[in-house]
Each structure stands twice: as structure tokens, then as C-alpha cells.
């Protein structure tokens, strides 16, 4: 397949990062994530002292400050798991489609999940949050298959730009259906408008508990397919020659990614661009071996979303900037940068 390009030229130094360097970076990422989680709990529209933070972490909500901190803890945890899910699913999607522009947001998968949830709530009276997750995953899977089918039409198969275009178009179409479904329903319109921007506000331990089993399955499937994705990166023919069943790998890994981003969308709305930015950054840190980049992407995604959520709470105090807005502001310029880097003949 002549049309397939990896996103960076083969560079021996990057391909073979020594294990020590990778391990060091892994420690750095974990430390940064931990620091960001602490910051996210400590920062917000209300200034709190460290004593209050410690007290609240211990489970106390005696004063107003401690109660505020106690509300921030589940929010931070939700940002961490959603960010990890989106980062990992972006990395897997980029591996499966061998496409540097792949991202659950750009490929229209998040919007498909969003449309499914909105339709189920408006037309079938769905109220159970667990039901949200199943419906969202169904919508995500449908739109992923649809976008891949449309992007593969015609000469050259699924080239990065054709896939991205098909995804953006599907996303726009789903978004306009979402408005049509939500708008006449005043009872759900207000809450859905906010949900549709994408945010982790209003998190609770209960909600996190509901999504955790799904996320665990998704994480397991994705991380276990790392080695197979390495073979796939060599090209379909070579991967088949190495004894991999290409179609099975693709389907399994994509299913894992869809479970992750469907669940994330059900819990926090369609948050875009995290899955795009994170894997690119991780390949700079950890090289191109999926066994390293996948866990890296999960950690970095968690860090990015936690940071974006905390930043959104701090910059416009006392108001919140929804995390979906912050990630679009960070991610879209990066998307443009990658599009610009593509050579003309790929367009």
C-alpha cells in the first residue's frame, strides 16, 4: 500500500529509545500526573489552605473549604480515568488505522456516541446511567465502522486525510442531529447543552464506579494488543507474513478503543483532541514501540485532562471553563500543525 505513511520518518534514535530513558520518562510522567492531581484538588474557585486539603483527603467535610475540596476529589479522579481512556483509545486508533490524524473526536466516534445517548434519552426514555454506557458504545462502534467504510472508499484505501475528512463530516452531521433531537425537549436541553461541550464537573464516586468495569475491559484489550499493533505498523502484508491475523487484530484493538471512548463519552460528553495530541507527544518520549507508547498515552492523557480541567477552573474564576473547551483550544492548533506537515501528494 503506497498511500500509507507513518507520521514520522524512520529515525533510528527515536525508534530505539533505550529502556533506561523510557523508564525515566515513565517516572517523570507519573510524577507529573501525581502533582497535577494534587493541584487539581487544591485549586479551584475557592482558595483553600493545605490543612483543609489534607483534612478533606482524610474524609472530613466540616468546613466550607473542606467540603469544596471533597467535591473536587471525585472530579479529579474522573478526569484521570477519562483522560487515560481517551489518550489510550487515540493511540490505539492511530495504530489500527496507521493514521497520525486518528482521534476519537476527529473520526466522529465521540459524536456518534453522543448522538446515540441523546436519542436514547429523548425517544426511549433511557434514564439508567449504565444504559448510557451501552448505548454510547453502540453508537461509537457504529460510527467508527461507518467512518472507516466511507474513508476506505475509492482509490488508495483509507488514507489519513480521507479518513479525517470522513470523520469530520460524520461528526458535523451527528452534531446537527444532536441539536435537532435535544432542542425541542426543554426538560433535557439545558443539561445536554453542557454535557455536549464535554466536562467532568458534577462527578461522583457512584458515576466513576459505574464506568470502571467497562474501562477496565477496554484498557485490558487495548494494552494486550500492543505487540500485535507493532506488527501491524509494518504493513498488512508483512504483519500477515509474521503470522498475525490482521483482520482479527484490527477488529479487537478497534473494539477496545471504541469501548474506551464510548464509555468516556457517556460519562463526560464528547471531549475532542486528547486522543490526537497525546500519542504524538508520547512517541517523542518513548519511541514507536506500542508496548511503551500505549501505557504512556494513558498516563499522559490522564495528566492532560487533569491539567485542562484544573486550568479551566483557575483561569476564569469563579466560573468554570468546561474541559472540552480547553482541550479544543490546545488540540486544534496541533491538528492543524499535523495537517500542514502532510505532503501534497497525500492530499
Amino acid at each position: 500500500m503506497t498511500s500509507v505513511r507513518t507520521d514520522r520518518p524512520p529515525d533510528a534514535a527515536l525508534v530505539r529509545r533505550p529502556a533506561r530513558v523510557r523508564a525515566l520518562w515513565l517516572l517523570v510522567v507519573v510524577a507529573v500526573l501525581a502533582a497535577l492531581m494534587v493541584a487539581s484538588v487544591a485549586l479551584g474557585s475557592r482558595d483553600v489552605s493545605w490543612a483543609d486539603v489534607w483534612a478533606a483527603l482524610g474524609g472530613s467535610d466540616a468546613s466550607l473549604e473542606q467540603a469544596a475540596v471533597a467535591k473536587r476529589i471525585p472530579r479529579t479522579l474522573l478526569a484521570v480515568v477519562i483522560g487515560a481512556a481517551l489518550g489510550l483509545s487515540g493511540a490505539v486508533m492511530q495504530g489500527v488505522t496507521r493514521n497520525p490524524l486518528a482521534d476519537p473526536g476527529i473520526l466522529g466516534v465521540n459524536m456518534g456516541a453522543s448522538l446515540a445517548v441523546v436519542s436514547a434519552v429523548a425517544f426511549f426514555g433511557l434514564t439508567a446511567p449504565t444504559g448510557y454506557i451501552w448505548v454510547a458504545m453502540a453508537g461509537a462502534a457504529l460510527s467508527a465502522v461507518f467512518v472507516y467504510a466511507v474513508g476506505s472508499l475509492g482509490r488508495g484505501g483509507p488514507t489519513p486525510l480521507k479518513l479525517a475528512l470522513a470523520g469530520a463530516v460524520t461528526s458535523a452531521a451527528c452534531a446537527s442531529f444532536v441539536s435537532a433531537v435535544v432542542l425541542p425537549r426543554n426538560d433535557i436541553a439545558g443539561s445536554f447543552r453542557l454535557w455536549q461541550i464535554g466536562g467532568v464537573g458534577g462527578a461522583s464516586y457512584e458515576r466513576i464506579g459505574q464506568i470502571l468495569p467497562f474501562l477496565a475491559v477496554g484498557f485490558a484489550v487495548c494494552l494486550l494488543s500492543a505487540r500485535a499493533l507493532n506488527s501491524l505498523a509494518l504493513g498488512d502484508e508483512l504483519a500477515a507474513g509474521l503470522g498475525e491475523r490482521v483482520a482479527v487484530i484490527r477488529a479487537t484493538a478497534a473494539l477496545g478503543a471504541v469501548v474506551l471512548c464510548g464509555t468516556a463519552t457517556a460519562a463526560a460528553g464528547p471531549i475532542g483532541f486528547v486522543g490526537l495530541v497525546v500519542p504524538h507527544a508520547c512517541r517523542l518520549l518513548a519511541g514507536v514501540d506500542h508496548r511503551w507508547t500505549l501505557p504512556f498515552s494513558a498516563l499522559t492523557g490522564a495528566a492532560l485532562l487533569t491539567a485542562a480541567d484544573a486550568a479551566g477552573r483557575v483561569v476564569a474564576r469563579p466560573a468554570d471553563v468546561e474541559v472540552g473547551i480547553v482541550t479544543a483550544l490546545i488540540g486544534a492548533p496541533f491538528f492543524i500543525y499535523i495537517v500542514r506537515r502532510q505532503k501534497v501528494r497525500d492530499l
Partner: protein
Amino acid sequence: MSAPAPAAVRPSVVQAVARGRRRRSSRRLLVAVALAVLAVAAFAVTLMAGQTFYPPGDVLGVILGERVPGASFTVGRLRLPRGVLAVVAGFSFGLAGVTFQTMLRNPLASPDIIGISSGASAAAAIAIVSLSLGGTQVSVLAIVSALLVALLVYVLAFRDGVVGTRLILIGIGISAILDSVTSYALSRAGDWDLQEAMRWLTGSLNGTTWDQVLPALVALAVLTPVLLSRAHDLSAMQLGDDTGAALGVRVERTRITVIVAAVGLIAFATSAAGPIAFVAFLSGPIAARLVGAGGSLLVPAGLVGALLVLVADFAGQFAFDARFPVGVVTGVLGAPYLIYLIVRTHRAGGSL
């Protein structure tokens, strides 16, 4: 027509070509007249019909300035500005959309997909919600930011020339940023005013007043002649920049004039009615189907746009249990077509 004719019968070939041209141009005229008649009919219906029906005599009386009890308020204050804005905004979107699609030779390169409408609505939303500006200032801000966004998209897409697909993808990225700015501005609005929000997110004609209509009307009256005077150059440029230059078109000057005029139309219409979803995108291809190959699509596309907005607004008000803003109706109509278009272009292979 069919197989190439031998040299001996050249006169009849010339005649055949001339006949074909005449036939196509008469078809174009016929389509344009039919569209205009339909648009006028739809406009008349939106003035007469509604919660209460007023006979044509009453409506005419109101338009001529007479006092008709009941109708003076309902038709004169509510339906007339709304209908006029529907026509003006629809025509502006259709005309500007087809201009971009023709110039960039790609149906996906319409202003509502490559971020120009998003730029206008982000500026308008910020101006109204955060800066509490009114009327003219909002229009000015909208047009300036739409122009800046158009420039930005063009500059970012420029690398060894502008390639259609890259421009579209960069436009999509830019509009993702701008849409989130709009969402942010709206989420800061004191109470969540859905009407106002919908105006800037998908477009709506609810509660239109003459103050909103006038700037858009003036812009349309000024900028339409500018665009139409460039119609010939635009079709020459469709053959490629070099061919266009060889045919005597000042390519760069035409391009700049056309972009500024089209962006102006979009910005004024958007600041009055919001970015009515997909009208700019849909009008051109529909007009192309109706008119057939060859010839300028500018006027037919404008008429299609006006007709689309009129019909969609009327349907949105009365066809369903709930009242939909016009942008939602056009959005639902446009979405399947958008997907059909991407399927068709991909299947045809090659570039869009």
C-alpha cells in the same frame, strides 16, 4: 454531443455547439425564473399563513403602509422582518457559499465548513454576551473576525500552493477552536438563554426586528453586484489559475475581491441570523444539479438559499409539534447530503 465530426461538416458542428449553448442558457434562465417565482411564492405564504391567516389583500395593505387591525402588528412587525431576513440571509449564504465552492473547486469548501461562519458567530457571541455591544458594532466585529479567519485559514493552508483538502481540514480545525469559544461565551451568559444560544450555534430567525435586517439587506445590495460582476472571471478561474490568467483574468485581484465580498455577505448575514447551518454548503450543489453544466451558478444558488431558508423556517415553525429554529431544520436536511457528498467524492476516487 457524440463522436467527433469529420472536417467536411464543420459548419454543422458550429451550429450544434451554438444550439447547445442556446439551449443551456435558456435552461439556466428558465431555472432562475422558476426559482425566483418559487421564492416569491414562499415569501408570500410565510406572510399570509401562521397562527392566524390573513388574506393577500390585508398583507398587501400592510406592506403599502395601511392600517389593518391585527394584521398590522402580526404581519408588519412579526412576519415581514422575519420573511425579509429569511430571503436576505438565504440569498447571502447561497451566493457566498457557491462563490467559495467555485473558487476552490470543491463543494466541501463552503464557508460554514471551513470556519468562516464560526468566526463570525464566535465574534458576535462574544460581542453580545461578554461585551454587551449592540447592532452595528456586532456586525463590524463579525465581519472583521470573519475576514481574519478567512485570511488565517488561507495562510495556514498555503504550502506550495493551496490544496483543497488541506484547506478544508485546516478550516475544520479552526472551526473547532471557534466553536468552543462560542460555547464558552454562551456558557458565561447569565442565565442559559436557549433562544439566543441557538441563534449563534445553528442559526434562528426567532424574534427578528428591522434593526437586525437592515445591515444585512444593505450588505446584500452592495456586495451582490460586486460578486456578479466577477462571475465571468470566476468561471475562467475554474479552469485553473494559469489558464485563467491566460484568458485575461487578473487572478489575484479577482480572488481578493471575491473573498472579501463573499466573507462580507457571510458575516453580515451571520450577525443577523446566526450561521444557519449548511445553507451555504447546500445551495451551490443543488443549484448545479438544477442548472446543469456550464455557466455561472451565482444567482441560482442565491435563490436556492433564499428558498431553503424560507421553507425551512416555515416548516420549523409549523410542521412539527415543537418549534424548531431554522438552523436545526437545515442542519437535519444538510447532514445526510454532506455524507452522501463525501461518499460520492471518495468513490469517484482521486482528490475532492
